[in-house]
């Protein structure tokens, strides 16, 4: 399923994050103190938006050219397909984001330990975004204005991830422990991992009909 990926896509999505995150200092102003304060939130919000931006492509193309049909007709259960799609999304979107996040951290002049926690929270959080996203993408497949509709459906589900993810980094910067935030994130990850692929698979079947 992943054989189809090219290396070029990776590089471009890394640049993409750098650019999105660089927009904020430009819009907000260069004061390092302000930047440090909003840094974790901004990186997290960019992660959410980047995930949203890449979701419509996840299934729409397969749907249009008929390969989704073909995939549903393989002997593999649809749940595996949904899981594979989430994984593919995470690989092309989450992993580059993770790799580039230290640079974003430096741009916002975050301290080193905050950067470490930021990366950790992204490592736990971005798979959740991909898993939830695949549900949304499957539900809105082939609908008119599916891009915006997808956002509407998915953003509310993303909010808890955002709160705990950015909260973890804020906590470390305020000098308290980030552990509780991170373990909550972990719990969310486990539960979405168990539930989301099933729902996405069911949604896929409905959409393809």
């Amino acid at each position, binding site marked *: 399923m992943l054989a189809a990926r090219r290396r*070029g896509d990776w*590089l*471009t999505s890394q*640049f993409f994050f750098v650019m999105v995150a660089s927009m904020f*200092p430009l819009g907000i*102003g*260069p004061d*390092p103190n302000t930047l440090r304060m909003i840094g974790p939130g901004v990186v997290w919000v960019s992660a959410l938006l980047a995930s949203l931006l890449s979701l419509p492509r996840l299934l729409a193309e397969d749907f249009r050219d008929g390969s989704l049909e073909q995939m549903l007709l393989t002997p593999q259960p649809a749940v595996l397909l949904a899981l594979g799609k989430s994984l593919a999304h995470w690989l092309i979107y989450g992993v580059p984001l993770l790799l580039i996040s230290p640079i974003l951290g*430096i*741009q916002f002049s975050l301290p080193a330990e905050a950067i470490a926690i930021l990366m950790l929270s992204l490592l736990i959080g971005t798979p959740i975004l991909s898993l939830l996203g695949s549900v949304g993408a499957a539900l809105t497949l082939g609908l008119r204005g599916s891009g915006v509709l997808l956002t509407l459906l998915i953003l509310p589900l993303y909010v808890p991830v955002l709160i705990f993810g950015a909260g973890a980094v804020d906590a470390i910067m305020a000098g308290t422990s980030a552990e509780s935030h991170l373990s909550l994130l972990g719990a969310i990850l486990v539960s979405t991992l168990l539930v989301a692929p099933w729902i996405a698979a069911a949604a896929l079947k409905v959409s393809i009909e």
Partner: protein
Amino acid sequence: MAINLYYYASPATFYQLSGKLIPWFGWSAAILTLIGLYISFFVAPTDFQQGEAYRIIFIHVPAAWMSMFIYLVMAFWGAIGLAFKTRLSFMMSRALAPTGALFTFVALWTGALWGKPMWGAWWVWDARLTSELILLFLYIGIMALWAAIDDPQRGDRAGALLTLVGAINVPIIYFSVKWWNTLHQGASIKPSGTSMHEAMLAGMLIMAFAAWFYTIAVALYRVRTLIIERERNSEWVKALTGK
């Protein structure tokens, strides 16, 4: 006109011509770099304000100049290509881009290195720095666009259009220090004269020429590769590689 421009615009003739020119430019670049570096590190005096750190200027400034200049040349070739449909000018444009990106990156990198001792930060969101960063993104964007289009002719034209759109950024970089009051230093070399020490000036100019020759040599080399690749089915390339 006595010289037939179309003669030199044909890839086959240009291929031969550039083959002869490359070594000249290559060696000049190497020699000038050596001289320039020698002047920069041993001849030029220590700056009374900035100490030794200022020596980064000898790399920083030529790189910054080249980054902007190469972009303009690319846009020029792109425009020529769009107007007259000459294949060679698109290839020139393509051949210049990686070097341009390289110099932009070097300017940013050395600037950041220099910024740490001078301004106390690797990076500030100042207009010149920002617009130089945008220039890097433009270079990367153009190269990404070329890479994404399989058909070379289509890629040429799409890339040229993008190059032209982005060209407005260059005057912004250049004049940013004037238009906005920024941290970054203003131009010290003006048509009206300069405020620099002579050895510093000489070092910088020599380095600038070295960068020039390097660019030309590398660009010619890349054009040759491009020509061979694009014209691989034509008679003269077959004759060339077949022997």
